[in-house]
């Protein structure tokens, strides 16, 4: 419970709330776009490097592979549950429901970073391979969503649309900036190990929390602006989905953590990953794969509803759930 409280009152979360409130109050405060993108690259590099260094200390065991398989399976399955719930409880058509479902099967790397920091502040250990898992869980949900709208293999590339190029969707999905930076930094951290990390620690370790505060201030502004501009597109049932779906995913992941007998920190991260919703990789992929789906629905829901919920209340709840399950 202490861990949960300290998460809510951490500078990271309070800066996020500051940004969100400022945007909702129509403040003119902005963080330059290119600078925010630079911060995102820095954070993904830092988290990838740390994860790689941790991975270099331990061998890739059967337990780790089991966690990878479980994470990928969750990313495939969660969109199916989300799609069913959306088509039963909301007015969204199949295309929009599938696009929203893809977001909830994929992950939010910023939520993951916030959870990692919350766990570190609580003194809970986490394993480096969870970073690799984050990268692995980004894309299966997109495939699930495409299957949900019964796309054929050629349609997946939208080759019927003028100017569409074969393989452009797969390129977007597998080689988007977050996957490249995260996996690349993870491999570099893994290869160079602790010795390599020592050389770059002053840049990647000490300023990390401050940069995260700055980035979450920007994320708060983005979430607030997204909510302000797109809330008219969401009805109560859809907003409700943005809150209860992460909890359903968290329970599902919690059951897997219990079965796999995962340590508390790792369990909290897997639960957080499963409960988080993408707002960088999947929206971009959906614009290519399902252009008829409305970004004002899926992005507002993911960025304006689920992300703030996860960062403020969700993470403490997921840590609490992990603690309860692993006691």
């Amino acid at each position: 419970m202490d861990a949960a409280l300290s998460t809510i009152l951490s500078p990271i979360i309070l800066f996020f709330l500051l940004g969100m409130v400022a945007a909702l109050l129509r403040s003119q405060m902005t963080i330059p776009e290119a600078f925010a993108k630079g911060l995102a690259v820095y954070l993904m590099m830092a988290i990838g490097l740390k994860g790689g260094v941790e991975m270099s200390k331990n061998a890739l065991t059967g337990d780790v592979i089991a966690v990878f398989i479980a994470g990928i399976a969750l990313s495939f399955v969660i969109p199916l549950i989300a799609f069913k719930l959306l088509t039963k409880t909301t007015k969204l058509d199949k295309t929009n429901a599938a696009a929203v479902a893809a977001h909830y099967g994929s992950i939010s790397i910023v939520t993951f970073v916030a959870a990692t920091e919350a766990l570190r502040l609580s003194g809970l250990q986490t394993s480096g391979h969870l970073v690799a898992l984050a990268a692995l869980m980004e894309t299966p949900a997109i495939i699930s969503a495409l299957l949900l709208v019964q796309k054929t293999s050629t349609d997946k590339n939208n080759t019927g649309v003028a100017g569409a190029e074969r393989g452009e969707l797969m390129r977007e999905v597998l080689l988007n900036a977050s996957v490249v930076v995260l996996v690349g930094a993870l491999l570099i951290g893994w290869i160079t190990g602790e010795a390599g990390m020592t050389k770059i620690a002053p840049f990647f370790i000490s300023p990390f929390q401050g940069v995260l505060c700055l980035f979450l201030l920007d994320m708060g502004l983005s979430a607030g602006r997204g909510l302000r501009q797109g809330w008219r597109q969401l009805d109560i049932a859809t907003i409700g989905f943005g809150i209860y779906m992460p909890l359903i995913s968290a329970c599902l992941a919690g059951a897997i953590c219990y079965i796999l007998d995962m340590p508390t920190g790792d369990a909290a991260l897997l639960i957080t990953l499963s409960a988080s919703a993408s707002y960088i990789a999947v929206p971009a992929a959906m614009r290519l794969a399902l252009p008829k789906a409305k970004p004002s629905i899926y992005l507002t829901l993911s960025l304006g509803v689920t992300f703030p919920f996860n960062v403020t209340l969700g993470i403490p709840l997921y840590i609490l759930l992990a603690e309860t399950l692993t006691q």
Partner: protein
Amino acid sequence: MTTKKRIELIIEKMAFKRACRVFEAAGAKGYTALPTMAGFGNGNRWQRDTDMSGSNDMVMIISIGDDATTQRVIEDLESLLGEHVGVVSISDVTVMRPEKF
């Protein structure tokens, strides 16, 4: 001075490369792409830096060409705009050095 057709396409950023391929495949001699700041359409306000995915971003592509090329571009853009968010307009413009277009 010669009269040519000017195509002005505003399209979502994620379809930008598709649009460029349409212009190139139709034989356009050139085009220029510009970023946009913000706008309103279909009941929604959008702003360039709302989110990191860039899914709300729009770009403008301007191309000047002869009637035949313009016709070919427009036919393909119709298919593209059937799927993606965007608007297109065509106007007559007067140009110097017509061989450039």
